[in-house]
């Protein structure tokens, strides 16, 4: 059915476009091949998702290592795990990490690897802000935003289709290409619609976990107040919609529905103590690059 439509469409295009006469000779067999390639891609299994996400996470950590502070890393895992328990995918192997970079950013790879940069963490004022950002990233994972972006991409889509079980494909060059192309989507960013959706979902997750859901809006306001020319936000701003717009959309969506949870705890003291003791022991990690 789809192939027939495609043939008609290409036929119509061929007739209207000013192409040379030879190009007008339609090769039905070739069109059938094209049709095959355009069929919906195989949905990776949850196992595939986790394998791919772990290998993309290894690449992200190659670009920026973890902060060498086990207490800080455990703290972020406790907060993150608590949020993740309030999603539809509580049993994914959730991992949370603070990356040692001054850049302000956060990432999540398929299968539940969530990262926040030290530059972002140090701009926060309380745990509800941390919870809000982790909840936004957790939402990307739950809704498979990054995974679907990889599947939609021409190269990664084709590669993922060619490969069988990802765990068994790990030695193959096609899989290595899939992982590095999968990493590159973090340099380009997701659809704006995915970002807005993760904001809307994230504030609900934070409220479900018992936090003041206005933590994420507070961070968006901080971001919206940073000079866009600051190097610390260049990648973040390149890959995300305007923070001011995000702030407006998410607070409008919250009004009348989540305001009543604004009195839930922000957890300021615990956050502040963790950050202070982190600052007192901090030594920059060695970078790979």
């Amino acid at each position, binding site marked *: 059915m789809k192939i027939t439509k495609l043939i008609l469409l290409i036929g119509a295009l061929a007739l209207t476009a000013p192409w040379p006469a030879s190009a007008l000779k339609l090769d039905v067999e070739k069109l059938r091949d094209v049709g095959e390639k355009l069929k919906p891609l195989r949905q990776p299994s949850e196992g595939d998702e986790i394998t791919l996400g772990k290998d993309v996470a290894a690449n992200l950590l190659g670009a*920026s290592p973890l902060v060498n502070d086990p207490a800080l*890393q455990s703290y972020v895992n406790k907060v993150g795990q608590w949020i993740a328990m309030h999603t539809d995918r509580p049993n994914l192997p959730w991992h949370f990490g603070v990356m040692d*970079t001054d*850049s302000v950013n956060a990432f999540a790879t398929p299968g539940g690897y969530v990262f926040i940069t030290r530059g972002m963490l140090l701009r*926060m004022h309380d745990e509800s802000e941390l919870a809000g950002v982790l909840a936004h990233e957790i939402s990307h994972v739950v809704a498979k935003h990054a995974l679907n972006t990889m599947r939609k991409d021409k190269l990664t889509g084709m590669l993922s289709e060619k490969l069988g079980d990802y765990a068994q494909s790990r030695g193959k060059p096609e899989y290595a290409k899939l992982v590095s192309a999968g990493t590159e989507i973090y340099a380009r960013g997701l659809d704006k619609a995915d970002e807005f959706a993760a904001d809307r*979902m994230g*504030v609900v997750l934070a409220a479900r976990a018992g936090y003041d859901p206005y933590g994420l809006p507070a961070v968006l306001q901080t971001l919206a107040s940073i000079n866009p020319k600051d190097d610390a936000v260049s990648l973040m701003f390149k890959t995300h919609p305007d923070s001011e717009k995000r702030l407006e959309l998410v607070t409008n969506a919250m009004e009348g529905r989540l305001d009543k949870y604004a009195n839930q705890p922000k957890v300021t003291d615990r956050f502040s103590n963790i950050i202070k003791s982190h600052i007192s022991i901090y030594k920059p990690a060695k970078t790979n690059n």
Partner: protein
Amino acid sequence: MKRLLLLSLALGLAAMTAACGKETATAPKETNVSVAKNTSVTTKETTETTASAKPADTAAGETGSTRTAVNLMAGPYSDAKPAGQLPQNTTVQILERRGGWMRISGKGKTGWAKLFQVRTGTGPEAQKSGEGLAILRNIGETGRSGSQGIVATTGIRGLSAEDLKTAKPNPQAVAAMDSYRASDGTARQYAQSAGLKEKNIPFLSP
């Protein structure tokens, strides 16, 4: 008190950046702001945002500016009574936050504005420094403030698009992440110890 110190630091930074050739919008005046124990810097500030003019007991003790013209409301809700109007780029004091709203005061008017209508920070110069904790971090790292304790805005230890494209895998770091994971039980206990109570809340429609 700590907030005040951070504020002073931010103002000090703003002055240093301003001294590097960038003029502030309104006529600057000279004041001395003590930055840390043994350091003080001469700073230029706009007349509307002097540190002494800020009430120390405000919720945030911070200033901001309006992004657009703002219709102030008498309460933190859309159908509250109007409480006057502020033009775009008015310097305001942030008195209180509640949900998606901020109570602000400027040009003799006080009322509630939506979060997205207000830019936080004391002005375009201070914004370059990031927030207080970023400054605190540098004090923590260098053990002092002053010119070497100020956050650099360029040449940072950053993560760029190019870094991501050329990244080589770091499987040891991924393995280390396993050791930091929290079980559901640990996470629940930790949440309870902070007084967090679970709620059953449906997702928001777009």
